[in-house]
């Protein structure tokens, strides 16, 4: 199973999460038994290829999966409470106040017909009943200043279409951190932005996170960004966790064949002369996922067992788990059930 130090409960603890999409062509098994923890003031990177379920994982934490998607099993414990079981009103009180999220397309994520200042102030007004319009606006202006926006007063009266992408993402950060949430989910916060400002945004975000002492779940397909900013990394593949551990350990000594392959695709890992490495084969269709390890069809080390049986997370050290039979010293007892009932 996933990590976690035995004595302190983690801030967020996801266990055996199952999410399915009931589509025209059949049931998409988007997440199948995803488990991980986010500790207090920890920043975790969630990496994997497009469609591996990173964003769905993040959205499940907020319980905001669009239909036809549905959480079909598992638990999401946040500060000891299972979010899946909470009534909608209590869940709403958590959204935006305790858990916030920054999205990929900052310009699309702001309401086009609402002034920026009002959008930032709104988060406060929703959650803090002691505030009135005026005091909330004042706080919003402070927040805008702290995301290094020049002349926040003037900007607060503007509309989103007048902003650049980088500016819009600063606004999003301000809007989502103004309530000092305990967990910030950042879904590819820089991938829609100009390369030149990506670093600035990440830096700004990290500074604010440190300041308000919250945790971050950073979703990215960019291992470089994760290596720079996160303490731990979770590698996902086709709706399952392949490997999880300390960033340095995982990056320098990957134990799952998928992680190793993913690292090989990084351009700065190879000589300029060598052709770029690419993982052979395609990501499996989640309509009819492989029965065993979902990576097995593409894996260079696949054994017979990999095609029939689902590997469970095997702890290598206290802080490093890998779901791969290569690390399973003793063969499984036959009676052991698969990690998660379907």
């Amino acid at each position, binding site marked *: 199973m996933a990590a976690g130090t035995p004595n302190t409960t983690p801030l967020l603890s996801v266990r055996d999460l199952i999410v399915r999409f009931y589509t025209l062509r059949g049931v998409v098994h988007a997440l199948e038994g995803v488990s991980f923890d986010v500790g207090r003031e920890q920043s975790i990177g969630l990496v994997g290829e497009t469609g591996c379920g990173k964003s769905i994982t993040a959205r499940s934490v*907020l319980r905001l999966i669009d239909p036809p998607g549905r959480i079909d099993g598992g638990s999401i414990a946040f500060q000891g409470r299972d979010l899946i079981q909470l009534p909608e009103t209590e869940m709403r*009180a958590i*959204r935006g106040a305790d858990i916030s999220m920054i*999205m990929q397309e900052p310009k*699309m994520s702001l309401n*086009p017909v609402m002034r920026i200042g009002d959008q930032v102030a*709104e988060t406060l007004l929703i959650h803090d009943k002691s505030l009135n319009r005026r005091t909330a606006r004042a706080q919003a202006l402070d927040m805008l200043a702290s995301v290094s926006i020049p002349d926040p007063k003037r900007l607060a009266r503007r509309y989103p279409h007048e902003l650049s992408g980088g500016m819009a993402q600063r606004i999003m950060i301000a809007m989502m951190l103004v309530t000092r949430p305990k967990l910030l989910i950042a879904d590819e916060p820089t991938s829609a932005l100009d390369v030149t400002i990506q670093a600035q945004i990440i830096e700004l975000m990290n500074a604010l996170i440190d300041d308000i002492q919250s945790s971050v779940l950073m979703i990215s397909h960019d291992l470089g960004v994760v290596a720079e900013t996160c303490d731990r990394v979770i590698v996902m593949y086709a709706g399952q966790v392949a490997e999880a551990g300390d960033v340095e350990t995982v990056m320098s000594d990957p134990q799952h064949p998928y992680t190793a392959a993913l690292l090989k695709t990084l351009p700065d890992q190879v000589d300029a002369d060598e052709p770029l490495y690419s993982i052979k084969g395609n990501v499996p269709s989640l309509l009819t996922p492989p029965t065993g390890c979902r990576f097995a069809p593409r894996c260079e080390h696949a054994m017979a067992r990999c095609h029939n049986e689902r590997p469970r997370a095997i702890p290598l050290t206290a802080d490093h788990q890998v779901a791969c039979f290569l690390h399973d010293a003793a063969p499984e007892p036959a009676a052991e059930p698969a990690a998660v009932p379907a």
Partner: protein
Amino acid sequence: MAHYIMKRLFTLMITVAGIAVVTFFLSLVVPLDPLAAIAGPQSPPETVERLRKLYGFDQPTYVQFGRYVERLAEGDLGMSFQTNRPVLDDILNFFPATLELATIALIFSVVFGMILGILSAVYKDSLLDHFSRIISLIGVSMPVFWLGLLLLLVFYFQLGWLPEPGRLDIMLIEPPRITGVLLIDSVIAGDWEVFWDALWHAFLPAVVLGLFGLAGIARIARSSMLDVLSQEYIKTARIKGLSEYLVITRHALRNALVPTVTMIGLTYGSLLEGAVLTETIFSWPGLGRYLTTAFLTLDLNAIVGGTMLVAILYSVVNLLVDLLYAYLNPKITLAQHDA
């Protein structure tokens, strides 16, 4: 802003000039000889010839067109063969009744259309959604003239719940004509009995006329609301912890309103169309009925004048709607709107 409006007004003027050409063309292709109709079937050819000269129909086409434009520029739409009065006077006389009817119908269709469409989108695939979609589908499929007849049959002839066709009870005396809109004139005259009776008489025709518009507005409101609800900023609002009610009222509604406003312009057009049929059925003394009579009797000047007025009105309404659209949508600064 001013620049944009000027530009639009200029295009409008070109359109009006085009409308004049089209209507003139209409008058040329009329195969029947309206003069023979005026003069009467028994009149000798000389009389018809004299009339022909009198109206200028003996001149070559381009001269006729020149005169026509000249007259238009002076605001002279010619005489109606039917009523023997200047067409412009006729139009000014009949138009307020249509304006009154169309406005009530527009209010009815906008209010109920928006409510129905938005609820339908918010509760997508619910019973209410299916119900409202079927209502609006029936609305756009309904032959207005038939519905009017049917409702008259049921509510006036059979049940007697609603008043007879017409604008006012025959026993009541119209207040002094100021605007020509009974509802306004009666208020000015302080004659509340007339006011309520006029409103009562307008109820059924307005509902019949408004139904088509209602259906169109409900459909657009639904689809634009659905579109808005799938946008990223709606997800943002939910992430912020807003209740679904606030997500819809504060974030979705105004964005959905923007495309719906465009529909109102189109609705107005359909109301003018519908007025032609509705007024015929409800004996409503408006422009629609005037035009229908003109068409049926080939009252050329009335046809040309009336059609032109309707087209100009329609264009002006569309211009106003575009301005409103630009006002509602901060993304459009008017200067670049035309690009």
